[in-house]
């Protein structure tokens, strides 16, 4: 990992399209401004972790439950729309 020290107001450039600027340092919080082309997905790392965790939860399903739910849905007229 590349480690750089920056002060508030200073920035880091990644390539020629992305700039990450330290806007404010306040106690344990750092406000960061990111300039990047609109065609980039930028998100807090927690979102990636949430998707990963939900994927792991989603693999734990049971064929019996699946059939039960589908039967209940057809009993309730919840057949898929066409």
């Amino acid at each position, binding site marked *: 990992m590349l480690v750089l020290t920056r002060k508030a107001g200073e920035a880091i450039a990644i390539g020629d399209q992305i700039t990450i600027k330290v806007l404010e340092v306040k106690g344990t919080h750092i406000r960061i401004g990111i300039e990047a082309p*609109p*065609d*980039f*997905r*930028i*998100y807090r790392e927690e*979102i*990636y972790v*949430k*998707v*990963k*965790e*939900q*994927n*792991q*939860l*989603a*693999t734990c*399903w*049971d064929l019996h*439950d*699946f059939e*039960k*739910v*589908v039967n*209940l*849905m*057809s009993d*309730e007229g*919840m*057949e*898929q*729309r066409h």
Partner: protein
Amino acid sequence: MPDGMVGFSERRFIILNPENGGPFCWFQSLDNPDLAFVVVEPVRFFPEYQVKLTREEYDKLQLEPGDETVLLCVATMSPDPLKITINLQGPIVVNPAGMIARQLVLDGNHSTRQPLFAPREPAAAGTIRKAQPPPAVSGISSLYSGKGLAPVRS
């Protein structure tokens, strides 16, 4: 699936449409028989849910704006239908012609546990209907300005 599902190393999957499966399909790993996801087309439940792809995502899926795509969301199943949720934050985009898929992590604020069904009113035990569309499924418009990904019904 060149990058696999987020958090999983398996790369090759097949979409199975089980008989009497209702809106659910199986996203089955070809290399690990124990790995299968239940997936749904979110448009069946949340017509306004749309995903715009970035240029990079179009490239990785070998798609051009306007090409046919299939949008799927991973369901987290439960014996209680009211507790079945789908993950709107991490949809799977499929290029059906090229047989390439990617699971995206969207940057907007979407639920990873959006209930698929809402209780019928007045709430009666065991009855289900379609859930109301979630409030935060629009506004990813800051991304690539090409044509939005229009989910295609199978």
